[in-house]
């Protein structure tokens, strides 16, 4: 075993002149992969950037909420997409416990909420107001939901609290959780042919806005404490009686031991900042062009050398 390590170290040292980041540990940097495309591609992009700089990178598929616990204990090294609306709470909880650090924001501004493609407005003209949506709930009914409307929420592990919001605002909707992000696109795609009205969970930046023009449903605006204090928001007795933040952050997070172990990689991570169009583009490569994630990452890196070149130096 010792021999192997020595041989391995020797190998790494031999490569040292090629690598700018020679002082980084040769242990693999573990990047988590979740269940939506932009995150997967971004993780592969960053992974390939780090690899080209000589780091050892490994990917692990994890739950997008549980990942903060894994980052905290160092099982996972970083998280590239911390969406305020979806993961703000888990991230804050992990920050309080310690072990994870905030590595700054991406340039991107995010919003996640109930969303509909434009043709839905023909069947329910009062949109985007949420009360108007509720009034035409029957338009969204399917055999499974009875007379109530069907709202396709994100996968359960995103903990979107759609169910709680429907209850808090007393809406005539049944919340169905999609199996994956791709199921959401399948739903919109299937509805497109005969312009069937649908309302699904969606977010920006995303490729979907370019393919299917649409709008977010306007819920009672987000207020601080709406998810922790029942008295905040329109329903004095319930949590989640407001929309998600309309201008949320997109952060990067890392294990607090990363800087000491992989200083150069950490510096790169600090510099990384993606914009809304870049993130939408990355999602599109997989969701529309049907590339495999690592292929998509290669394609993106090839097309944008000036963007990521700046982060490495």
């Amino acid at each position: 075993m010792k021999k192997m390590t020595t041989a391995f170290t020797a190998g790494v040292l031999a490569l040292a002149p090629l690598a700018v980041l020679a002082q980084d540990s040769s242990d693999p940097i573990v990047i988590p992969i979740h269940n939506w495309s932009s995150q997967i591609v971004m993780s592969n992009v960053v992974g390939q950037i780090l690899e080209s700089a000589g780091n050892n990178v490994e990917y692990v598929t994890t739950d997008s909420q549980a990942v903060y616990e894994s980052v905290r204990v160092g099982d996972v090294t970083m998280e590239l997409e911390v969406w305020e609306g979806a993961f703000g709470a888990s991230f804050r909880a992990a920050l309080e416990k310690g072990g994870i650090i905030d590595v700054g924001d991406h340039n991107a501004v995010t919003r996640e909420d109930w969303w509909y493609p434009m043709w839905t407005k023909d069947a329910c003209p009062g949109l985007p107001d949420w009360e108007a949506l509720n009034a035409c709930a029957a338009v969204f009914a399917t055999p499974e939901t009875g007379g109530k409307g069907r709202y396709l929420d994100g996968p359960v592990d995103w903990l979107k609290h759609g169910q709680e919001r429907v209850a808090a605002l007393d809406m005539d909707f049944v919340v169905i959780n999609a199996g994956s992000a791709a199921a959401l696109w399948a739903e919109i795609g299937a509805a497109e042919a005969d312009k069937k009205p649908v309302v699904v969970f969606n977010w920006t930046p995303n490729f979907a806005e370019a393919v299917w023009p649409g709008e977010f449903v306007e819920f009672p605006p987000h207020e601080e404490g709406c998810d922790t204090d029942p008295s905040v928001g329109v329903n004095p007795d319930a949590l989640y009686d407001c929309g998600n933040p309309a201008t949320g952050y997109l952060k990067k997070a890392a294990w607090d031991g990363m800087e000491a172990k992989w200083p150069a990689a950490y510096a790169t991570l600090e510099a990384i900042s993606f914009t809304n169009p870049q993130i939408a583009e990355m999602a599109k490569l997989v969701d529309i062009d049907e590339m495999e994630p690592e292929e998509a990452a290669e394609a993106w890196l090839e097309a944008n050398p000036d963007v990521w070149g700046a982060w490495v130096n």
Partner: protein
Amino acid sequence: MVAIPSVTRTPMTRNRTAIWLLGIAIVLTILQYSGVLPAWLHRIPDAMIPPAAIWLDVFFNFVKDDLGLLKFTRFLTAGLENVLDTSGNIFYGKRRWPNLGPIPWTAIAGVAVVVGYYLGGWRLAVLGGGTFIWTALIGQWKIAMETMSVLVVAAPLAFVIGLSLGIAAWKYAWVDKTIKPVLSVLQTLPFFTYLLPAVIFFKVGPTAGAVATTIYAIPPMILMTTLGLQKVSPEVVEAGKMSGCSKFQMLRHVYIPSARTEILVGVNQVIMLCLAMVVLTAFIGMPGLGAKLLAMMGSFKLGRSFEIGVTIVLLAVTLDRMSKAWVVKQPEHFEKGTSWVNRHKTLVLAIAVFIGFTLLSFVLPIAGTIGRGQDFSQGKELDNLIKGFLAIDIVQSITYGIRYFLNVWILNPFRDFMLSIPTPAMIMVVAAFAVWLGGKREGVIAVIFFGLVALSGWWDRSIITLYSVLAAVSIAMLLGIPIGVLAARSDKWSQRVLLACDTAQTFPSFIYLIPAIMLFGITATAVVGSILIFAMVPLIRYTIEGLRTVPPEMTEAADMAGATRMQKLVNVQLPLALPTMAVGFNQAIMFAFFMVIIAAFIGTQDLGQELQRTLAGTDLGKNFVLGICVSLMALTFDLVIMKWAADKKKALGLP
């Protein structure tokens, strides 16, 4: 002679108790509908529900942090990770020690041919080789090997632990006594309940997956080992003792070889369960076939799901047939003086093939790995084909019609009705069922078990779970029993259908989601559909077996009495086949409880969904409470039905 009156009398009082219970339940429900039932009798008030999840969390946290269990398991994790890294390197070229892999696909396929030929002749050789060649050519080699690399660690682990515990349980009565109830709970506990503790204690990724898989596969190994050892005949034991064997020698050279068949059947079950579970660990981020299948099904890419499904099924069938052939194959004995090479022909040949193909892959890279774009996958084309088929107006109106009919007329009303029944009434209905079929003891157990479910605070979701199970199993019976009856009419068809059922039972449960999603999309109907297909297999199988094992004297007597075919079936064959069919019914219910939880990923509103949600956090207590709810409901059915089948068999004088 004395037993007969008691057999005939007990059902009378039993029936009366059952009718009483049912009567009270009906009265309570009517009161609920007329709106006079106080709310606390409809559902247990929240304030009265003990916060079991919080207590459990306190307990788990104590064990985890204060007693240092986490430190201990993390220590084990490090060891397991090294093993998995090594097998990962060998199978799919993970960049870890010993940095040798990945093994060329041609070498693995070649070895599979040799092993297949050794175990079962040309047919198995073709099956083994064909499976791996298909996997490589379709472009799924890497993900298949990711799955295999965990399987080769988890299955032997489960085997060793199961064998040791089995021996201990056979040797010491107290071990047997403590282990038995734990095993029955473990076997009905939904798989999702294994996943969260695995992640918390054994780190996210392959280690957690391997641990959850191993633990799930241990129980059948224990049971088969004990069974085999108990069956060893006293003569053999005598012979061993007379030759002066020590205790260990007795075990090693007398007991285990005599119990070889049962132990190998256990091995077969371990392998099959491991494969089924390894695929499911995709839910906690295990890479491999399961993860890809999950992603493809979730995005409705059915062609590609189908291709992965074929790979998984082929792997399952190959592993199953090979391990079964190993059970049947008797150890070879050679004459004294046979050379080592002659005694180990297969081994030598396998090594030669392995080295040959490995060398070939250096010259011809395509024999080593098939790269991106070099495969023959037609997934994207199949996707469009299936999508096109489903978009045809007639197909669409048929599937929509079925969905509409099932949901609006049957499923939703049934669910709403079950939800409207007051909690105590529901418990009484279940108790009545248990008393009627099983007896007083079963009735008491049913009350306790369902009472615990009511106290868990997850009553509504438990009832929705139960509703899906009952609805799907009922429909499965309507379809499966006639198929079984028809098939049992001729030898040829019985054999064919039994073979199909046998094969279908080796499929990992995940596979059953594919056809359901293909027809009904990502809807509640697909959930019922997948449970239905899964549960139908044991129903058909045991119906055929039950009817085929009806003693010929009985059917002949019926023929002589001039019974028509229908009369013979209804009055003679079915009553005699009923105990066996009940076993099938029981299995169908157990399968349904298993499937309904997995189907959470299509989108259910039941315990499964809550369980899946716990995977996103660290709520061990809640996770455990939910799992136990499923387990308690499944166990109630299991106890009652098995008791009934055993009683009935005894009464009918069947073996």
